């Protein structure tokens, strides 16, 4: 069972705000635990000699030729930014 602290830590890492007064944290703890229980159930199978599946499609080496393509105009790139400045994305300093 995933405890409350663990849920809050995962939420913090993912920058998710959970409403602690509405029971959201407890709900998440239950749901995440359910997922992990399911993984544990799979872990109980005898998978000796079975390679882990990182990808479900049977493809390798999908590559692109190293040729320059068009980039966005800067105004277009910056258009969705909340606070563009000096041709750049201005952001709160990460260590302020």
């Amino acid at each position, binding site marked *: 069972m995933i405890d409350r602290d663990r849920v809050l830590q995962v939420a913090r890492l993912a920058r998710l705000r959970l409403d602690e007064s509405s029971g959201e944290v407890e709900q998440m703890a239950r749901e995440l635990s359910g997922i992990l229980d399911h993984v544990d159930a799979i872990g109980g199978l005898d998978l000796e000699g079975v390679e882990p599946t990182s990808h479900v499609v049977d493809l390798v080496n999908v590559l692109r030729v190293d040729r320059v393509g068009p980039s966005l105009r800067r105004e277009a790139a910056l258009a969705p930014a909340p606070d563009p400045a000096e041709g750049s*994305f201005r952001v709160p300093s990460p260590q302020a």
Partner: protein
Amino acid sequence: MADFEAVIGLEIHVQLATKTKMFCSCELSFGAEPNIHTCPVCLGHPGTLPVSNEQAIRFGIETALALGCEIAPRSIFHRKNYFYPDLSKGYQISQYDIPLGSSGRLGEVRIHRAHLEEDAAKLSHLGESGRIDGSDASLVDFNRGGTPLIEIVTEPDIRDAAIAREWLQLLRSTLRQLGVSDCNMEEGSLRCDANISIRRRGEPELGVKTELKNMNSFRFIERGIEAEIARQIELVEAGGRVDQATMHFDPASGSLTVLRSKEFAHDYRYFPEPDLVPLAPSLELIAEIRAALPELPETRIERYIGELGIPGDAARVLGFDAAAAEFFEAALALGGASPSALSGWVTGELAAALREAGHAGVGDSALSSSGLAALAGLVEAKTINRRTGREILVRLVSQGGDPVAIVEAEGLGSVSDADALSEIVDRALAAQPKAADQVAAGNQKAVGPIVGFVMRETKGRADGPEVTRLIRAKLGLD
């Protein structure tokens, strides 16, 4: 200090010299206007898909092979999750449990792994100090975001700062000669972090290590590592203990500061990148790339010392400078001068003459390999003395030409007529009686004015060692 030893491992990030980014076709550039080389992929817009750059993969395999690594038959990319403004997607695409290359060696240092990843964007911190701390806003330039990188991680095989610097220079010249990167530290295309710990000599356990971040010149790397080793030793000798930390070395003040660590930096929650399929280079491709590798500095230096008998210093200079080495080999192939003599010319007088003339390399000069071979041959055969040779070399560098013809046309041949030289030496001894007495009394250095007299008389064309021999003989010293 004597009973501690340092244990140093390096992590080097190298930008690969592709035309486009790792996972999109935006152009790579350094120093361009901010944010003119971006697209929805490298800006991390939802719904976009990365596609790996074939040339970056090839450079990665070349690098791994050049470092003696084994190439993973199948490797995958992972997402390394963390939030930082220089990372558009909230994760960096990198390799994790199966790197492209592993278990290699360069020089005396084992390579733990070499893996591919993408670079972050460039952050400029505003605020009075210009440093990260204390500034309240930052500007993000995504031109650099998504640049292909190879990260090279060594085993902790290095024991002091000077060796770390020397080894990095070997790595840089290896990568440059491979052509996978320009390895320009000032522009950040080669960046080095060092993991440093100390332990008492003979102690098998490793001490707690600190990480010294982002040093951008060889000199700073050496000084930074030295400073951190000294700090740790001082701390332990005073009864303290080293804490795990990330350090920044300020080359201006020579001081080390602890950087605040990224929040939860250790918790990257890696998982396989579902948008990229595995890399599985075929054995044919690996064999083809291996066969096309040029001779690299380490092998070249060994061959020059072992097979050609060239002194170690000259062999290393040539090993690190492929253009000079090729010129040397072209001259050597023409015969007429020994490998040692030729290597001495190339790394000594020629290097100096090129510097003086402002040439970046011998390719910029008018000197031909046959010109150098002939010149070195003339000196080795004592047809001309070394000083005359040096003067002719300077002319060849600026104007080219055939040294044999120059020597003949201008009568620069050594004064080798034994009688003529003997007569001049007699006059020199008569003209410098005080010096002659001192030499006769055993003061070898006093020979200078006498040799100087002979050189003036012969316009510098006398063979120096022969003059000295004559002087000593005439003074009854030999």
